[in-house]
């Protein structure tokens, strides 16, 4: 009995320490963002919101943010369409070299990003695609597709194909069957894939550092140079805001799930 309690206590302590370790940067970043000094200072001696003002007044920051959003949205759309189609082919398809296709589609998660970045940089430089939205979208989509594929194919594997047979026997052609039956059933996984895709693009530093330049930069690249070149406390302000946005995204996903469950319960 006593050893059991002891074990449980140790486990709780370990869990708390791990959680603290994971969120520790937050305790550094948030206070620093309200710091009045011109340096990244911790703990702050005086508080102000001047770094938040600095963010909103600096067109470089605003442009980088808008670029990241624009690229992120395009990447999400493209990778959801491509990733869902690829997942369908990988789960349902019956063709030779299927394993090879799966391997190629999932390769970007396995190959180190630096290698991808180097290769892409060499080619894109030649094609004039560096510092262009198209260039960013193409690379980020390649990196994001595997996350959509992994999510969607898991949903397709557990999806009952007889539902599609039923839909067709009831007069729905293949396209209608997919849109009205298959897609709604796997929608939560597609949405999760979309969220992953957006974050993959929005977060991406390695390949972006290679592609960015004075003409076009993204938020992570701007932050990176903000720390590297001039130790700019605006980075802390941006980090704090990003943290809030991410929290809001996941919270809304959770709320949607809760809302749906409640509506189902009400119908009973």
């Amino acid at each position, binding site marked *: 009995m006593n050893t059991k309690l002891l074990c449980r206590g140790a486990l709780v302590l370990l869990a708390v320490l791990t959680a603290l370790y994971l969120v520790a940067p937050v305790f550094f970043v948030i206070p620093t963002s309200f710091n009045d000094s011109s340096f990244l200072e911790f703990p702050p001696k005086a508080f102000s919101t001047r770094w938040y003002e600095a963010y909103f007044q600096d067109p470089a920051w605003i442009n980088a943010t808008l670029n990241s959003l624009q690229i992120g949205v395009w990447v999400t759309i493209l990778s959801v369409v491509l990733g869902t189609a690829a997942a369908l082919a990988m789960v349902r398809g019956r063709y030779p070299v299927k394993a090879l296709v799966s391997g190629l589609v999932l390769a970007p998660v396995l190959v180190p990003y630096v290698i991808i970045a180097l290769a892409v940089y060499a080619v894109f430089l030649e094609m004039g695609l560096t510092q262009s939205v198209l260039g960013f979208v193409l690379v980020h989509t390649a990196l994001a597709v595997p996350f959509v594929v992994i999510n969607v194919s898991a949903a397709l594997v557990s999806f*009952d194909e007889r539902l599609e*047979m*039923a*839909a*067709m*026997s*009831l*007069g729905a052609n293949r396209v209608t069957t997919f849109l009205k039956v298959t897609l709604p059933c796997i929608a939560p996984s597609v949405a999760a894939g979309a969220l992953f895709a957006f974050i993959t693009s929005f977060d991406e530093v390695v390949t972006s550092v290679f592609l960015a330049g004075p003409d076009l930069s993204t938020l992570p690249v701007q932050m990176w140079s903000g720390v590297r070149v001039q130790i700019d406390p605006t980075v802390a302000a941006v980090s704090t805001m990003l943290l809030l946005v991410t929290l809001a995204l996941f919270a809304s996903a959770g709320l949607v799930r809760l809302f749906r469950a409640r509506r189902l319960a009400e*119908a009973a």
Partner: protein
Amino acid sequence: MSQNPSTTSTLAGTGVSIDIRNVVKTYKTMTAVDDVSLTIEPGEFLTLLGSSGSGKSTLLNIIAGFIDADSGSIEVGGKDLTKVPPYRRDLGMVFQHYALFPHMSVWDNVAFPLKRRGVAKAQVAERVQRALDVVELGHLGKRRPAQLSGGQQQRVALARAIVFQPQALLMDEPLGALDKRLREQLQLEIKRLHRELGTTFVFVTHDQEEALAMSDRIAVMRDGALVQVGTPVELYERPASRYTAEFLGESNIFTGRTHGVDDGSALVVRPEHVRLSAAGAELPSGHNALDGVVREVVYLGSGLRVEVALPDGRHLITRSEVRGALTPSPGLPVAAHWHPEHALVVRDDTAA
């Protein structure tokens, strides 16, 4: 189900014939459907009966259009559907595991085929309500499938399959996932539905009792081929082969030489035609008889099932009344006898 006949009659279909001609389907190592030809009459309730792997489900899926046959053709109502995709065949289908759309309400499930056909909104509402009334679920339209019992879900699936007045209704072991009581109840409901709609029904099952209880005709399948097609009475009373005799109901089978020649035939005697008398007692004239010893007596409520051990080690099954002239008990020497008209000579197709 609704007791109002006008409710069902407005959903009534026109029975059409289904012609299956020389259908063959082979997979890598096995022949799933082996040159099957069968004509299903308009408005008929036909059951494809067979054990698992007999090809009955494959054949149904070929009729539905989900599986392409290697050769042969499917005609429904005189129209060749062999190359027509399933969504243009206009055949209702009911699956063993219901296959209701989980993200739609019961109502939307049943409305689905009507919407695909562009039926006007007011008419959709009317016909969905009617179809749900027919299966007595008119009050559950707002529920999700997951909130219904298995029996209710299968009734929704039935409503969904009949609401668009398909040319025929195909059912792939629709009662297989339900418990015995519910299964028997739904058997009656499906039969009534068939009577009231007049639509051609093709029903797949491995349960011979279900087949006997429900069908106008039964097609017995084995290893992808048709063994025998006939009414339940024909199949039970005049099985053409040993396989059919053993598959439908209980049988006593005697093999060996007829008139001294092994001609590949077998003798079938149904248990209810075998009577027991005390050993040595006088038997009705002309009866065939075998002496044996009662091995086991099982009380079935409606009667007794008695197993008689024969001297050669085989055994024989009889059914008799609980309060007959003889009260069998294990160890009792008896004579099992039957009138020769109840002994059928059939082809022995179970060897090898």
